[in-house]
C-alpha cells in the first residue's frame, strides 16, 4: 500500500488535492481512498488530508500515521513540530517553496524536493492555489501513473479556459522536478 499525507492550510485546496489524486489513481486501476482530518474550520488553519493507493480493496479508515510521502503546501508548515512524524526513513517530502531543495534539505537534515507551486499557480491560474502543481510534481517524481490521468480527473471539476490553464500548469510543474526520482520508492510501496 502506498500512503501519502498532504499538509496545507484551509483554503489551499488540500482536500481537493487528495480527492483529485485518488480519483486519477482509481481511473488508472488502483484501489484508492482519500479523506481529510479537519482542524478548526477556517481559512489559514493547518489541515491534513490523506491518500491511500493499493492493488486490493482498502478497508482501514485510520489516519495515515506512517506515510511513504509527504506533500507540504506551505513552507512555514515544515517548521510545525510533528509534521514529519511517522514518515518512512526512506520516504520523500515534496515542499511548495521557491528556495532550492539543497538549502532546505540541509536545514531539515533530510532530503526534500521543492517546487515553486504558488508561483506557478499565480502565473498560470492567477490564484495562489498550489495543489495542482504539487500533484503534477509528485506524479513526475513517482511516475505512479501518467499525468494524463490527472488531467482527466481535473476535467471532472473544471471546464473551458480554467481547465486549459490547469493543464498548462501541470506541464510547467512537471518540468520543475527530476522525473522518476522517487519511482523505485513508490514502486516498492505499491506491493
Amino acid at each position, binding site marked *: 500500500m502506498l500512503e501519502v499525507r498532504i499538509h496545507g492550510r484551509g483554503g489551499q485546496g488540500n482536500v481537493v488535492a487528495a480527492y483529485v489524486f485518488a480519483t486519477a489513481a482509481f481511473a488508472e486501476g488502483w484501489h*484508492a*481512498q482519500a*479523506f481529510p482530518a479537519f482542524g478548526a474550520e477556517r481559512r489559514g488553519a493547518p489541515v491534513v488530508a490523506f491518500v491511500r493507493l493499493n492493488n486490493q480493496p482498502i*478497508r*482501514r479508515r485510520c*489516519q495515515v*500515521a506512517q506515510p511513504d510521502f509527504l506533500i507540504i503546501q506551505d513552507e512555514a508548515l515544515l517548521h510545525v513540530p510533528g509534521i514529519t512524524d511517522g514518515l518512512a526513513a526512506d520516504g520523500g517530502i515534496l515542499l511548495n517553496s521557491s528556495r532550492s531543495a539543497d538549502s532546505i534539505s540541509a536545514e531539515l537534515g533530510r532530503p526534500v524536493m521543492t517546487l515553486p507551486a504558488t508561483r506557478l499557480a499565480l502565473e498560470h491560474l492567477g490564484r495562489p492555489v498550489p495543489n495542482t502543481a504539487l500533484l503534477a510534481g509528485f506524479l513526475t517524481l513517482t511516475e505512479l501513473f501518467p499525468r494524463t490521468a490527472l488531467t482527466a480527473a481535473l476535467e471532472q471539476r473544471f471546464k473551458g479556459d480554467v481547465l486549459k490553464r490547469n493543464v498548462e500548469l501541470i506541464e510547467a510543474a512537471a518540468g520543475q522536478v527530476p522525473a522518476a526520482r522517487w519511482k523505485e520508492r513508490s514502486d516498492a510501496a505499491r506491493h
Partner: protein
Amino acid sequence: MRHAIEGSQALAQAVALCRPQVVAAYPITPQTHIVENIAKLVADGKLDCELVSVESEFSAASVVLGAASAGSRTYTASASQGILLMSEVLYNIAGMRIPMVMTCANRAVSAPLSIWNDQQDSMAVRDAGWIQLYCADNQEAVDTHIQAYRISERTELPVMVCVDGFTLTHTLEPIDLPSSEEVDQFLPPFKFSRALDPRNPTSMGTLVSPDYYPEARHSHHQALLNAEADIIAADNDWAALTGRSSGGLLTVDGPDDARIGILTLGAIHGTLAEARDESSDLPSTRLIKLRAFRPLPAAALRAACTGLDDVIVLERAFSPGAGGILSAELQAALASMDSPPRVHSYAVGLGGRDVPMDLYARLLKTIDGATPGPFTIFDVNLENLPAAER
C-alpha cells in the same frame, strides 16, 4: 458503475435515485455535503423535488413529517445537536408510524463541542421508535439508503440510516452507484395508505386516553420487532438485483472455532478486519458487524455469539454513569444462552479520536480468561486529567 466519489456526494445521488418528492434539511457538519449536493441536483434540474429551506432542524423534521403524512416520499439529514433538536419530532414521526428516511451523519454531542465522529447522536434517539441501520462503508451506505425506503414504506416505520461522519461522509472511495432503472425496479412509487386527504379527513397523533395508550405502544414495539423480516428481505432482494448485500441484520466474519468475538456498529469494522487479516500471530477472532440496532436482532446476536468465550463490544457512545449501551443490550440478549460469553465493554474513537490499526492487538491483550472489568473508555489518556478525575 463504480466511481471514485466522496461518500456524501454518493449519498445525495442515491437519495435522488429514490425520487424523493420533498426534502427539508438544515445544514450541520458533517451532514452538509449530502444536502448541498441534493440542493445542487434540484437546482440543475436533475431531481424534481420540493426542497424546503428551513431555519432549524426542528422545522426540517416537522416539514418532512407533514409532507410524508400527506403521502410524499421525503428525506432529511442531520447530526449531533441537530438530531437532538429534532428529537421531539422524531418521536412523533415514529409514533404516528410515518414512513420516511433520514441520514444521521454520526457526530459527537456537545459539550465540549466536537464536530468529529462518534455515535452519541443516534444513540441518544435510539428509543424514539425509528428503525436504525448502521453502515460500515460507503457502498453499504448507498445501498442501505435505497433499501431503507422500501423497508420504511412496507413497515410504516421511519428509518434512520447512520453513517459515520467524516469517516464515511468525507471519504472518497470506489462506490458502485446503481442505475435509475435498478432503483425503480426495486422501489415502487410511494403510496401511503393513511395519507392525509381533505376528502376523507383523519387526525394523526391526537390525544390518547390511558384506555388506549399502552396498546398504541405495544403496536409500535411489535411493528419494530416484525421489521426484522423486512430488513432481511430488502437486503436479499437488493442482492439479487445488484449482486451486493449490505449485511441484513448483522454479518459474522471469521472462523467457526474462534473463541473471541468483536462486535461493532459502523465504519470501525474495516480497520479491525484489515488488522485481523494482518495479524496471523494472534488468536483468530469472529468479527460481528451489527447493521440493525433497532430492531435489536437478539436471536441473530445469540447465534453470532454461539461458541465464543469472550465478546468485545466496541462502543462509539455511552451512557455516563452507566456505561456501554450496546454491550448492556448484548448482555440482555445473551442472558438466555446456556453459557453466554463474557462481555467486555470498551468505548473507542470518541469525538473523532483516531482508531488505529494496533487497536486490534491491544484489545486482544485484554482477554485473559478473567471476568471482564467495568466499562472503560479504552483509548483515554488519564495522565492528561487531574489525579482526582482519573
